[in-house]
């Protein structure tokens, strides 16, 4: 099931016929303060793949996502979404991307239904299509009874589900989930995993950032570790463990962040 190729050869036939869902080359993001959040990141995510991006706080995960979705403007480099330039001609690329951010960034003035309806409108969906999709998503995410309530009255779990539903509203081909399970209880986390797997089974490509290594291990086809704005390792969970000569993803992660003394395997052996 895993997509084993890291980056297709430049100008290859396969690349021309089947563009990567996400293709990032030499991406640099330098903030006006001088902080270099991304230092030449290159990455390929294949269509249909569930790709995990792991790294400590401040590693550059959210900046990378913001660059892909237009919320941050890259300093240099290229980003393509299914072959469409996401920086210079962003309109077409953005149509294909759905973003569920870590923050519950819902509009307090809108009801649950309006949140989804307006989002569909922003992506050019006709009214009839929006209505059908809203009904479908409210049902899927168990929010039908809350459709007329303002978003600020929802519980944290409901807000989290609504953020995910909103990202799916316009049927994106690439879904970006930034820490979707951060701070949620076990029940909701499992519920969200279920949704993510369902979306993936429908053929949607997913880029997932998470702090939970077991989440990445269980859900992702391939994983990239990002640290200090650079991709430092990339592969399947098993190949990453093999690459670092450890037993699992957690130990590989600890090797990368330079904290191998925290390894549970090492501690129990000692």
């Amino acid at each position, binding site marked *: 099931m895993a997509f084993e190729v890291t980056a297709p050869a430049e100008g290859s036939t396969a690349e021309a016929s089947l563009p990567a869902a996400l293709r990032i080359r030499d991406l640099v993001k330098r903030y006006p303060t001088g902080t270099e959040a991304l230092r030449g990141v290159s990455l390929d995510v294949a269509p249909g793949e569930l790709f995990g991006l792991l790294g400590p706080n401040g590693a550059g995960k959210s900046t990378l996502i913001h660059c892909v979705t237009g919320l941050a403007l890259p300093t240099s480099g290229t980003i393509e979404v299914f072959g469409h330039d996401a920086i210079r001609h962003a309109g077409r690329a953005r149509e294909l991307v759905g973003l569920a951010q870590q*923050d519950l960034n819902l*509009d307090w003035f809108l009801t649950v239904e309006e949140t989804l309806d*307006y*989002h569909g409108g922003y992506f*050019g969906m006709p*009214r009839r299509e929006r209505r059908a999709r809203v009904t479908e998503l409210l049902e899927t995410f168990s929010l039908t009874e809350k459709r007329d309530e303002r978003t600020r009255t929802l519980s944290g779990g409901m807000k989290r589900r609504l953020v995910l539903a909103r990202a799916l509203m316009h049927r994106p081909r690439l879904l970006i989930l930034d820490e979707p399970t951060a701070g949620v209880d076990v029940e909701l986390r499992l519920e969200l995993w279920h949704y993510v797997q369902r979306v993936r089974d429908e053929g949607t490509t997913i880029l997932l950032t998470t702090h939970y290594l077991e989440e990445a291990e269980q859900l992702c086809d391939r994983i990239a570790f990002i640290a200090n704005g650079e991709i430092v390792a990339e592969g399947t969970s098993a190949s990453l463990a093999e690459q670092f000569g450890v037993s699992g993803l957690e130990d590989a992660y600890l090797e990368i962040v330079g904290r191998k003394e925290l390894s549970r395997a090492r501690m129990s052996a000692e």
Partner: protein
Amino acid sequence: MTATQIRFLALLRREINRFLKIKRQTVGAPMLETFLYISVFGAALGSRIDKLHGIDYVVFIIPGLIMMAWAMNAFSNNASSILQQKFQRSIDDQLSSPATPLELLLAFSLGGFLRGMTVSTLTFVAASILVDVPVEHVLVVIPALFLVGFFFAQLGVLIGVRAEQFDDVSFAQTFVLQPLIFLGGVFYSATLLPEPFETITHFNPVYYMIGLVRYGFLGFTEQNVALSLVLLSLATLALFAVNLRLFVSGYKLRA
């Protein structure tokens, strides 16, 4: 309907929906405020004031009040709406959509513009019930009010984009806009002011806006109408160009 039209309507509907959902604050309060101005300055004090340039005082102040309602509401709506959305980060939903900078700017601008138009239209209707408000030059009133509304809508967008806290918006409103509007001659004629205040008033752009609107309603002005219209158009265009540049560059909107 094309995808672009659907998108623009959705962006605009969101802005209109926002101010209609809090209409007691966004429409009701400004209406009451204007009614109080008419009552206090027009009916109560006005009866003690002689005519100004041959016009009843209460009638003299109504064009300025209508303009002020449009200006203040267009400004405060846009500044608050953008800042609130930035604060909640819900603006990311629009910013990560395929909407172009021009579509976003127009939608944000028109939200306040339409709120201002609603309040000033209701003000006009209410004032017309209380006193006889003439409309001498409708072809001046309409473009003048539209330009004033659009100018302040742009100013609201500019402040909303630049603002980092709610204090920034209220500072601009309380310490810059309100003095400019009040000292621009809403409640008096600049010719009544002693020097150097009369001359100073001529450097206040709002003075020319009020003059234009007053000319449209009452047929009286202290300024050159054509020149004022041209200058107001140029100022509005310049402000629009500045805002468009901010939206294209993502200034304080995109990281």
